[in-house]
């Protein structure tokens, strides 16, 4: 009896979504090899060979506990793993050089595998950034907030006059601010008062949008053709602005996706070559869905845990090849 082809799961070790998918695949007896790129090269061995007249890399990935032949891999679940870690015995600048070699080699050998991906990191990068997302969302037929990205105070004031209504400001990119305190700070979506615009806006890019009136928000998790819509209904002003800042005052539920929104989301996924996407929408009091962003590597374990939406099973279906 032939041995089933393995699924590679590439993620940081403490990643609940990866755990859920692994658990689901284990239950289906699908062989798995899971690793974090941070294990390479110290505790992950890569040997990849390319022939002169045969397409594709052959070789092995081996953690010492599990191994997989590259040519036998059936699918890859890739969730932004860590960066390669070079032995401390290697001094600079050789350590940085070695890290870049390791990063580029492992990333690009694995992404050259002609298999099913959730998501290929080349596509993840293409789809990860908000300014590009707005363009693709509107192209796909979705509505987005009027937005400006600027470091020019007068342009920001002119935008505020044109909107003539409430505004919000959000970071172009996530990440934390390390002020040296015990915990790092976060810049969440916040109310933006144009009267407060000053020269400090010139210091970097600022992302300002019209505030969309919300009846509730939707975290729409997409896996292939499957759409899983989780409603987030805020019970505080803070949660209504950015539900991440007051998660105890957010009620979760499920809902159906209007067909026009579903069609737009599928067009968006297709143009970005994504299999997985975590979309954030506002639903206005009149029922209109407004696209905020789509994270191609967003969290969803909490959605499945609290709503029962079968997101891990959809991942397993795709990776196993039954969808």
């Amino acid at each position, binding site marked *: 009896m032939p041995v089933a082809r393995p699924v590679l799961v590439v993620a940081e070790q403490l990643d*609940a979504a990866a755990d859920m998918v692994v658990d689901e695949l*284990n239950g289906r007896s699908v062989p798995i090899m899971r690793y974090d790129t941070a294990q390479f090269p110290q505790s992950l061995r890569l040997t990849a060979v390319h022939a002169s007249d045969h397409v594709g890399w052959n070789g092995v990935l081996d953690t010492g506990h599990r191994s997989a032949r590259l040519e036998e891999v059936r699918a890859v679940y890739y969730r932004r793993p860590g960066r390669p870690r070079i032995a401390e015995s290697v001094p600079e600048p050789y350590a940085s050089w070695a890290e870049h070699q390791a990063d580029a080699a492992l990333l690009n050998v694995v992404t050259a595998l002609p298999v099913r991906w959730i998501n290929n990191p080349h596509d993840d990068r293409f789809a990860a950034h908000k300014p590009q997302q707005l363009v693709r969302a509107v192209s796909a037929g979705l509505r987005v907030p009027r937005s400006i990205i600027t470091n020019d105070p007068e342009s920001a004031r002119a935008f505020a006059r044109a909107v003539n209504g409430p505004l919000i400001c959000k970071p172009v990119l996530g990440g*934390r601010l390390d002020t040296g305190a015990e915990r790092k700070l976060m810049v969440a979506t916040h109310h933006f008062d144009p009267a407060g615009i000053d020269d400090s806006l010139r210091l970097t890019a600022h992302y300002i949008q019209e505030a969309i009136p919300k009846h509730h928000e939707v975290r729409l998790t997409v896996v292939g053709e499957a759409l899983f819509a989780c409603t987030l209904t805020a019970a505080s002003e803070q949660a209504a602005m950015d539900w991440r800042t007051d998660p105890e005052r957010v009620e979760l539920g499920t809902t159906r996706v209007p067909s026009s929104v579903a069609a737009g989301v599928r067009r968006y996924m297709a143009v970005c070559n994504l299999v997985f996407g975590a979309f954030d929408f506002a639903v206005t009091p009149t029922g209109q869905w407004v696209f905020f962003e789509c994270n191609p590597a967003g969290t969803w374990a909490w959605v499945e845990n609290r709503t029962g939406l079968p997101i891990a099973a959809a991942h397993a279906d795709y990776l196993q090849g039954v969808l």
Partner: protein
Amino acid sequence: MTTAVIPLAARAAALPALVTTTVEGVVWDDERQLNVQADGTPWHVAPQAASCTDTNQDGKGDDVNDPYCAPAA
């Protein structure tokens, strides 16, 4: 001397909300290739923090974790 100035948007920086999740007693299970709690149940069934910018629970905001960081890539 240059006066330190904080960009307008960054003045809204605040401590992120703490969600009551824990990894105490959670260990890696090499056989199952996932994390388990002290009682042997999978960690993923425990409450998980909600975020749209993290991939895992390290609070780093992983949309800055660009897989193309290496200049050689």
